[in-house]
């Protein structure tokens, strides 16, 4: 006789407290396949844990975003935010879809050049641009978004020495009615700093003001804040035209659109409250079209959207290492996925589902990672089916900021696999080995030998 499918025994106390009025469903619907490839096969072939990216989802996201803006505004350009995910395969997918590169360090700048992006299609943001970086960017005709006056004077000196006109914009920070206001980057709109910078640029004979840039925050849930920001940049651009008879080529609204992740402490899931790309597009393009730009002189609209285009294209697959019972009776489950490779678990309550079918029984569980560190908590509380040792789980919406902010800490960083549009998986980053780390370490001669 065939034996029955095993499920571990469960007893759950029925609480008489108020039920959740939103009636949240538990997330036990299994995610067994990604783009037609079985999760079990991916783990069997590439190991556990493993990051998996869907090329199909990336392309679909960027096309939807372009459509959202291009149907509302005549001139739109996306620039891929390298810091969000700078795996070459990911960057090149965006470049194939027509996105320029948006970088915030010399390292990212070199990566964009290595990926074959023309210098003039690289936007160089951020507060950290060394003289060497600026020299390279000016020589390559790249667009430099000036963050502070020290950078302005460095550009002036380098461009003078090179006898090249540097293409520049300024980053503008402003009050858009949201908290916290990001005033640490760029020049402030309200206190006149932005105009100071614009006046200096317009009076310089080695700089050409080509655009205006802002980036009002991160994981923004309010499209209206973008509308305010777009009006303010338009006001600056029109002021420059009136004062200097100079038209800026573009308005760069930066990024910061929310994805479908749920921020820690959020009352409702991100998927229910994050505005759609259409709502952001409507807010920004309406503001620009309704401003005092002449209809035939509308500037190019640049968007540096990162998270909203790649987050849902990334999955992290892992396995259960053990189940334990905590002192107060709560279930805890240890995964082979730690905060060292899932940096965003510090900000989000990630959606986590099993990779195989279960019954309807679920249990409140604390999900820990494998690190021997108390901070290694993936979810403080989640309702999951009765997982056993060796069962697989899928962590959703991990495409943004994990493959760039992950740490080599205690364990080695795993492989990254991308599934192409035909459903074929490709390793796009090998798993780290001990040798990778030893290659960059050096031991002084007097420490080479020891006896125990």
């Amino acid at each position, binding site marked *: 006789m065939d*034996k*029955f*499918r*095993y*499920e*571990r*025994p*469960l*007893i*759950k*106390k*029925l609480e008489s407290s108020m039920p959740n009025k939103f009636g949240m469903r538990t997330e036990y619907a299994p995610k067994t396949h990604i783009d037609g490839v079985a999760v079990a096969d991916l783990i069997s072939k590439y190991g556990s844990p493993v990051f998996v990216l869907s090329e199909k989802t990336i392309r679909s996201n960027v096309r939807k975003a372009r459509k959202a803006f291009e149907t509302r505004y005549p001139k739109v350009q996306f620039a891929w935010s390298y810091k969000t995910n700078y795996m070459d395969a990911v960057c090149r997918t965006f470049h194939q879809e027509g996105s320029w590169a948006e970088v915030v360090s010399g390292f990212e700048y070199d990566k964009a050049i290595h990926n074959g992006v023309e210098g003039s299609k690289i936007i160089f943001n951020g507060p950290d641009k060394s003289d060497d970086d600026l020299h390279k960017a000016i020589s390559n005709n790249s667009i430099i978004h000036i963050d502070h006056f020290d950078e302005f004077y460095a550009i002036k000196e380098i461009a003078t020495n090179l006898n090249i006109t540097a293409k520049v914009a300024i980053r503008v920070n402003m009050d858009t009615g949201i908290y916290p206001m990001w005033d640490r980057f760029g020049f402030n709109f309200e206190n006149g700093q932005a105009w100071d910078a614009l006046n200096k640029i317009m009076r310089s004979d080695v700089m050409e003001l080509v655009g205006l840039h802002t980036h009002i925050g991160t994981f923004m849930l309010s499209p209206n804040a973008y509308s305010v920001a777009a009006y303010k940049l338009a006001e600056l651009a029109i002021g420059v035209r009136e004062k200097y008879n100079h038209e800026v080529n573009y308005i760069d609204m930066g990024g910061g659109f929310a994805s479908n992740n749920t921020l820690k402490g959020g009352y409702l899931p991100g998927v229910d409250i994050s505005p759609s790309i259409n709502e952001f597009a409507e807010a920004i393009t309406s503001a620009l079209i309704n401003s005092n730009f002449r209809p035939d002189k509308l500037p190019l609209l640049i968007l540096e959207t990162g998270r909203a285009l790649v987050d849902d294209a990334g999955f992290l697959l892992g396995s259960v290492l053990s*189940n334990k*019972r905590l002192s107060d*009776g709560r279930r805890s489950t240890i995964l082979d996925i730690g905060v060292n490779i899932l940096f965003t678990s510090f900000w989000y309550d990630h959606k986590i589902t099993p990779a195989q079918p279960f*019954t309807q*029984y679920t249990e409140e569980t604390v999900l820990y990672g494998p690190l021997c560190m108390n901070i290694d908590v993936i979810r403080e509380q989640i309702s999951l089916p*009765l997982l*056993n*040792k060796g069962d697989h789980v899928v962590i959703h919406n991990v495409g943004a900021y994990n493959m760039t902010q992950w740490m080599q800490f205690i364990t080695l960083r795993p492989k990254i696999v991308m599934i192409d549009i035909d459903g074929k998986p490709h390793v796009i980053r090998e798993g780290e080995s001990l040798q990778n780390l030893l290659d960059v370490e050096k031991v002084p001669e007097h420490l080479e030998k020891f006896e125990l």
Partner: protein
Amino acid sequence: MNINKNIAVSDSGFVFNPTTGESYTVNPIGVEIIEMLKQEKSINEINQVLIGRYNADIVTIDKDVSDFINLLKLYSLIENQNAA
């Protein structure tokens, strides 16, 4: 090990403890274990029954049954665990 004999267990997995007034839900394998505890079967006997019925190894079953019995104890559904 004495399970509280007053506990009412329905086939659908609803457990009621009349002493405290508290209720619980139990999955089918949990109901089986409670019924066997009522029949005063030892943990070893319970493990043997389950291994014959389900496709799991003895290590998994032993670990999960112990954990389940500890929870019954935490909920005061078992009076003592000396007979294990």
